[in-house]
């Protein structure tokens, strides 16, 4: 999620420290694994905010300006992706996503969270979660197509 192993290790440590500090507040209202995962996500969010990364660019997400957004496809006769995507290529493209997009993409498409769960974790609206995920996928599509165009060149 942070795209950097050393930082991921620091955040893992911080998540365990938080767990140690807050374990007494666990009331069993959700599964322990959900509670722990949410806490770990919060540690990541705090870190991203600390680094000044715009986590969810809410304003941008709401702007109805698809012609300026990533992945515009009207009038662009680019070839579609083939039916399968190379795992490494996708991993690379995900790593290159802006932090906010990457977070939502991983939570939804990789880890399988629903939009309502993401909205509650990230304190954004469900519409924003859907919109950000869509933009993340559009960016990935652009990146993957650019990559395959590059590979197709002699």
């Amino acid at each position, binding site marked *: 999620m942070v795209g950097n192993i050393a930082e991921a*290790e620091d955040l893992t440590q911080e998540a365990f420290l938080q767990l140690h500090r807050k374990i007494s507040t666990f009331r069993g209202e959700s599964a322990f694994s959900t509670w722990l995962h949410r806490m770990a996500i919060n540690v990541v969010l705090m870190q991203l905010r600390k680094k000044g990364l715009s986590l969810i660019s809410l304003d941008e997400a709401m702007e109805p300006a698809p012609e300026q957004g990533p992945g515009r496809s009207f009038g662009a006769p680019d070839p579609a992706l083939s039916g399968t995507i190379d795992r490494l290529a996708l991993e690379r493209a995900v790593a290159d996503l802006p932090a906010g997009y990457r977070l939502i993409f*991983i939570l939804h498409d*990789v880890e399988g969270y629903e939009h309502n769960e993401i909205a509650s974790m990230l304190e954004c609206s469900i519409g924003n979660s859907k919109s950000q995920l869509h933009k993340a996928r559009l960016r990935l599509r652009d990146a*993957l197509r650019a990559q395959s165009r590059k590979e197709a060149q002699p």
Partner: protein
Amino acid sequence: MTGDPSKMSCAEFQAQLPELIGSGADAAAHSHIQSCELCRALLSDLETIAEAARQLLPVVEPPDELWEHIESAIKNEDGQADDGPKALK
């Protein structure tokens, strides 16, 4: 915006796409998709990406010494707590 979904422009359709996909509706059944090859290709790509993402569960194993660091950080914190409240600055 036109009332007839099949006469929708690509921009109009794509503006609705996040909600359409996110709500779990069958976007492929939308009448614009039936008549627009470009948007059909877009939708197919987005579905392929979402499908491929499921294979991307994290595979990075944390190094063994990470737990040692965590353990010592926790002990360190406990030690500070045992020393009583820190003096106010």
